[in-house]
């Protein structure tokens, strides 16, 4: 359907950033970051306020110029061939950026026309998006008069008007109530299934768990990158497991154990290299050492926990 797709496949890398840097005067908002987002991936960019997420995204969409480095979207250099790259990008900025004095339908229509749609195709596309995002009954309402959640739905619909292969969403669920947030993430998964690549920022860690891969930013740098599971592992230096046993032994003698977080008379919280592989070996070894294992299970670590640890380290 897309130009490149018709000629073959879209390139494997949806976004490739190298040495991306943005300075505002002496202040370095984004500091030599590298990013690779694979086609079809749901990629989350996390970080505290002021970390540089929006600035990074704005350089990827080309609405600000990098001080250093470059960004390629599906292989197209955004700074050099912005117009061509735009064909593949749908963008939902952090701040609501549609015309408040135009109606819901007028906004989508306007963007459809600006993207180059006309006639029946335009009409159908507008209708399809209005229905898909439950905006049909509000289509004649001025965008300025919408609730926060409806505004976000309209912004998402507008970002999709030209059926982009890459969706870039800057805090799409900020100020959205929990049921609607869930609905939003269902939409994202659906879009992922359609083959779209998503780059999303959020402050909600439960949402970030849904991403295929994450990058953690702080003070303009990427301090960790990987799947949610990998990130947690990196934060703790391994997986967290809980062991309860009868008998006396030194937990450091157990296989795979890297550190002991807690030791309270038979109940241990341990960091192991890989819980899936190490837990059976730990049980076996403990019993060999004459202890009776009552419980051995991995402990769920919240992303938040990992996040805070990383932040502490990077300070």
């Amino acid at each position, binding site marked *: 359907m897309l130009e490149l797709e018709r000629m073959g496949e879209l390139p494997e890398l949806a976004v490739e950033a190298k040495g991306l840097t943005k300075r505002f005067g002496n202040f370095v908002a984004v500091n030599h970051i590298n990013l690779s987002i694979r086609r079809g991936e749901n990629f989350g960019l996390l970080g505290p306020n002021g970390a540089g997420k929006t600035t990074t995204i704005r350089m990827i969409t080309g609405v600000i110029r990098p001080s250093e480095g470059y960004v390629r979207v599906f292989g197209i250099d955004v700074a050099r061939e912005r117009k061509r790259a735009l064909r593949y990008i749908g963008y939902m900025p952090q701040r609501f950026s549609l015309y408040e004095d*135009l109606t819901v339908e007028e906004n989508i229509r306007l963007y459809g026309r600006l993207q180059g749609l006309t006639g029946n195709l335009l009409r159908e596309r507008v209708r399809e998006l209005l229905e898909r995002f439950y905006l049909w009954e509000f289509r004649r309402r001025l965008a300025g008069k919408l609730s926060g959640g409806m505004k976000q739905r309209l912004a998402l619909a507008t970002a999709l008007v030209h059926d982009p292969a890459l969706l870039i969403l800057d805090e799409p669920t900020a100020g959205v109530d929990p049921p609607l947030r869930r609905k939003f993430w269902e939409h994202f998964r659906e879009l992922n299934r359609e083959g779209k690549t998503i780059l999303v920022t959020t402050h909600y860690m439960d949402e970030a768990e849904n991403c295929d891969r994450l990058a953690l930013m702080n003070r303009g740098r990427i301090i960790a990158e990987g799947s949610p599971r990998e990130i947690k592992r990196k934060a703790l230096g391994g997986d967290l497991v809980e062991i309860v046993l009868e008998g006396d032994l030194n937990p450091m003698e157990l296989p795979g154990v890297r550190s002991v977080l807690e030791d309270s008379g038979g109940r241990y919280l341990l960091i192991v290299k890989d819980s899936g592989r190490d837990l059976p070996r730990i049980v076996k070894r403990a019993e060999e050492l004459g202890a009776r294992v009552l419980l051995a299970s991995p402990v769920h670590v919240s992303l938040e926990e990992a996040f805070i640890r990383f932040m502490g380290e990077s300070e």
Partner: protein
Amino acid sequence: MSLEEGIRKGLRIIPIVDKEIRQLVRDPKTILMVLLMPITVTILFGYGYGGKGAGKYPITVVDLDGGDGAFKFIQELRNSKMFDIKAIYRSKGQGFSSVYSGRVYASLVIPETFTEDLTKGRPTRVELYYDASNPSVAQMIMQAVGVVTQQFQEWAADRFGTFAITPMFYTVYGPKVKKIESFIPALMAMILQMVPTSLISVSICREREKGTFEQFIMTPVSVFDIIFGKLAAYFLATISDAILSLFTAMLLFDVRLKGTFLDMTIVSTVFLLNSLSLGLLISVFSRNQLQAYQASIFSFIVFMLFSGVLVPVDVLSSEARLIASFVPMYYFVTAFRSVSLKGWSYLMVVDQLTTMTLFTVAFLVLSLRFLRMEVT
């Protein structure tokens, strides 16, 4: 047909014009600026400078008689509430020059023998020297003088016996135009500069301020689309402004312009495009709406000072004349004066039109060059 095949390349001006007009129509500020302001300014000007301001015609009186009869007649003129007597002279020369110079519409001369004729019951006369270049006003003044003379005659007849006072009318040609007519070019210059420039000057920086620019530039619009789309939309919205003001002046103040409607519209359009281009340039360089308004007002003040609207450019210092030559409004005022008051065709002011267009092109080229397709 797939979405991909349906996507058109090329200009995006029409959707931008459509959007801008929708926004303009929904903005109460537009109604205020485009409709109310020009009419208000025209009416204010009309009352401020128009002859009918307080319902009185400014005239002067030349009292060669100096007697009680003349005194009584002058009193009668005042009582009639139709005249605003600016001065009473002792010589005809002074009276004439007050008309020639255009300060008043007419000068009424009371002859030497007026009181004597009156008391002896002899027929006598008063002489009205009126400015014929203003026929409608002249007509009214003659009628009013006729009425006053009639009343005076009745009063005098009671006391001194029957006789006749004949008003005599003489034409004088003052400067061709005056009062409201002469202010029409200035009025049009103000309306065609202030409203369009300030209205369009916020159009781009408002998008930056409100954040809509960030989404807008994610579409394949070009700098060209934005500049010309906005120019076209605001042109459509403000051209009514010019025409409306002309009509208001003509209807309310009986302004008789010699120029044809077509010629005046052509000259106005050229200047309107110039004002809009200047506004766009201001918008390209302004960080926010406040800055844009300030820049528009500043440019307006400079334009007013150096366009010959307040003070004729010829009497300014040579430095000031140099500045004036860079003020597009100066060329407009010159051209519009010739067209509206002298009845010239637009072809005869083609020099001024060309100069204005050169400024317009320069403003547009600079706007295209410096409009950044970036946020912050």
